[in-house]
């Protein structure tokens, strides 16, 4: 067991506003991993929605705000979302390209950023948290987590360590669920097709529970399941790891 450590939590606006209980689970799990959590309360949104829409002048003030909030803190920054982590790690340096002062700050910040599972496995060296989840689980790798951060082995390793859980493979698992931020409202027809395919693949697994590391995918797929009156539930990996 490594020594205890203190980290900063960037909760993401989706967890903050829609799924605070995921945040609570996350704190419990980090505590169990020997990590004390601090939460700078002035944090808001990382600016990704505006950035991905191409509205860089709108994204920039939010990015500056986020940088200023975390500048005052020390320690690693933990984010329960691959796509927000990728925004801080890769989006900010792109956003501040051509502005040396802010670029330097953005790079400093980027160096501290970790997605939740990547932090647990690669930084803390943990693969088993003594969690228990009776029944089938299947895992959907979120696109930014998988392809921008290259994080896939870590959540799988953590899930493999969950007692009583039967992990089944999701067919065509690396296909996008169709969320994509503003894409989901701007191109609803395309988004609906991706979602349909994801849900049909989930049904093929026979698993009642789909695990994700991003709340964007969670609210999208769960929203689709509710619309279709399906019984499957989507959970964040922190909720699985928090169960004993």
């Amino acid at each position, binding site marked *: 067991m490594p020594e205890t450590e203190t980290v900063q939590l960037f909760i993401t606006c989706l967890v903050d506003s829609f*799924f*605070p209980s995921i945040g*609570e689970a996350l704190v419990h799990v980090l505590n169990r991993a020997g990590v*004390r959590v601090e939460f700078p309360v002035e944090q808001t949104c990382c600016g990704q929605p505006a950035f991905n829409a191409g509205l860089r002048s709108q994204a920039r003030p*939010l990015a500056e705000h986020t940088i200023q909030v975390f500048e005052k803190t020390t320690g690693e920054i933990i984010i329960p979302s691959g796509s927000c982590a990728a925004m801080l790690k890769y989006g900010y340096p792109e956003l501040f390209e051509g502005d040396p002062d802010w670029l330097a700050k953005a790079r400093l910040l980027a160096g501290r950023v970790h997605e939740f599972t990547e932090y647990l496995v690669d930084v803390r060296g943990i693969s088993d948290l003594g969690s228990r989840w009776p029944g089938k689980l299947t895992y959907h790798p979120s*696109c930014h987590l998988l*392809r921008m951060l290259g994080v896939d082995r870590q959540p799988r390793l953590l899930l493999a360590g969950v007692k009583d859980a039967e992990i089944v493979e999701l067919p065509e698992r690396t296909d996008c669920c169709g969320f994509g931020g503003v894409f989901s409202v701007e191109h609803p027809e395309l988004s609906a097709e991706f979602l349909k395919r994801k849900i049909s693949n989930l049904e093929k697994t026979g698993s009642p529970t789909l695990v994700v590391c991003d709340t964007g995918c969670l609210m999208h797929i769960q929203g*689709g399941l509710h619309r279709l009156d399906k019984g499957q539930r989507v959970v964040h990996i922190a909720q699985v790891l928090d169960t004993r």
Partner: protein
Amino acid sequence: MSVKTFRERIRESIADENLQIALDGNARHRTLGRLEAFSAFPDYQERRERLHAIKADVISHLDKYLEQFIARVTANGIQVHRAADAQAAIRIFLEIAREHNANLVAKSKSMLSEEINFNHALEAAGLKVVETDLGEYIVQLRGERPSHILTPAVHLRRGQVGQLFHEKLGVPYTEDIPEMVATARHVLREVFLNAELGVSGVNFGVAETGTLCLVTNEGNGRMVTNLPPVHVALMGIERLVPTLDDLAQFLMLLPRSATGQKLSAYTSLINSPKGRLDVDGARERHLILVDNGRLALQASPLAESLYCIRCGACLNACPVFREISGLAYLGKDGSIAPYPGPIGSVLSPGLLNCENYGQLAQASTLCGACKEACPVNIDLPELLLRVRAGEAGEKSKNQRHDEGIGIPPIVKLGLMVYRLAGGIPPLFSLGQWLGGLISRVYSPRHKYMRLPAWTGWGYSKEFPRLETQAFRTRWKGIKQEVNSGDQSIRKADITPVPEPKPARSLADQFTEELSLLGVKVYRLPEMDCKASLAEFLNERTIEQVCVDSVGENYVNGVAIVRTQDPTVRAGVTGVFVGIADTGSLVLVGGEDSPLTASLLPDIHIAILKESDLVPTLADALAKPEIQSATAAVVITGPSRTADIEMTLTIGVHGPKELHVFLIS
């Protein structure tokens, strides 16, 4: 008539059942093919990084490489023309056509020709231009644009093609793909033989040697560059690689990414027009180098899109393309973008008209499947983001477009409000609380609310309620008990160790690769070769053959034809070198070595000595003869196509059978 919008076309595409089946088939087939092809490359990532670095060098020093390339091509005897834009390219071409009194033009596939609306301009000038790639021929007959840069008729099913051939070519309706392919072979063979001009694209230009490289599977690329007396190649100025060795690196990944093949059936390397003593080849060759916005793109934040080698892998991997096909990427004016898919949503606005095609970049979840599939590791999501941010203009001239191009005003407004609240934490908290309250009033019972369809979200899913107690409100109440015991287990090392492969002889490897391509290899000693060949020809009642100077030595008892006679059923040729790891044959043209002997007959018999095997394509291209010959071709299996319903069919334009006599 009102212009069809992008979203209307998306809806139509999704509702088109035939299209959906065709596109699902394409995505599955191509993705599997690509993954399988790369499973043999544990160093795949390094290889694509290398290609990325080569292209980065070429694009950032484009002037230098272009100058070197043009000098070499000119010295090789090919006439070089530079065209600043589409009009100039067409004017130059029409002048060449006029000079030769051309009426019939045989054309192989070129995306550049789509970009500059080439066929339309030629027809307007009274020329008849015939597309000879099967898929391209089909869409030309239908009066359509290609729906995929590689498989232009990917949106069609066999019945639609059968009906088309029945209506346009007067043949009986059939759903038999080999029969349809045979019809096209027959019709297009006449075009090859009668065209006064052959037009091709160029996959790669080699700066160091002035070589034009052309990759095709059907053999039409070889036909249009060899049979008509005049050949005109159209090439975008960015399609350069520095050296032949670099070319080999690119060729190792291009077909694997495109079709899952180790090499395409025919890789043509063209250095110069037919020499004085050569038996075949075009006697005059022209190269039209087209800018058409490329230099401006090079100076913009989208320069990386110029690294593209047009393999189509990003289209096959893209979940959006999979729903709509290349025919649905519409500009604001309702026109189909010349380049579809992820790369097209960068190239079309970047190269042509950002105001018109910029909206295409919004049709992406930024899932990154395109980048992952790209053999040159082009950061497509990043480039799409830059198009969205209005950065398609030239950096130095400070050209910018409006940011958030294509985003509906209501979404823009929403994001602005969110930004304002996000800058003031107390206001953000208040907004969360209010949102929580409102959503509770809107949906008192269910945690997920039903929104109307016009919101976009409500079209296919419910939306979660906001919590009145956000995480930031709950934070103070969370008690932390940090574990300092040792319940947790350290992670195990899970890196798998790859198993070393047993070494095989070059001859074994070569034979195995060819057998995977359905090619029979006869391994025999030199002294038996003549008799075996005679027996082979006798069995098939072949009475005359065309030959090159090597083939001639082995032919016994049948007539030898030295002219380009399309009725001869078999060609017997030597092989300059064989490539073991792809099962390829390299043939070098020149005096006494007609390249058409391995192209026009139905059966190609190649004779190769084991001692002439080399391990890889790079080893073959390193031979000095590749540079000094008029032209060379790398043959990997018989002529083939998968243009109709992804169904592999052998013998489109080139030989239907390939037999290799490997002499020990």
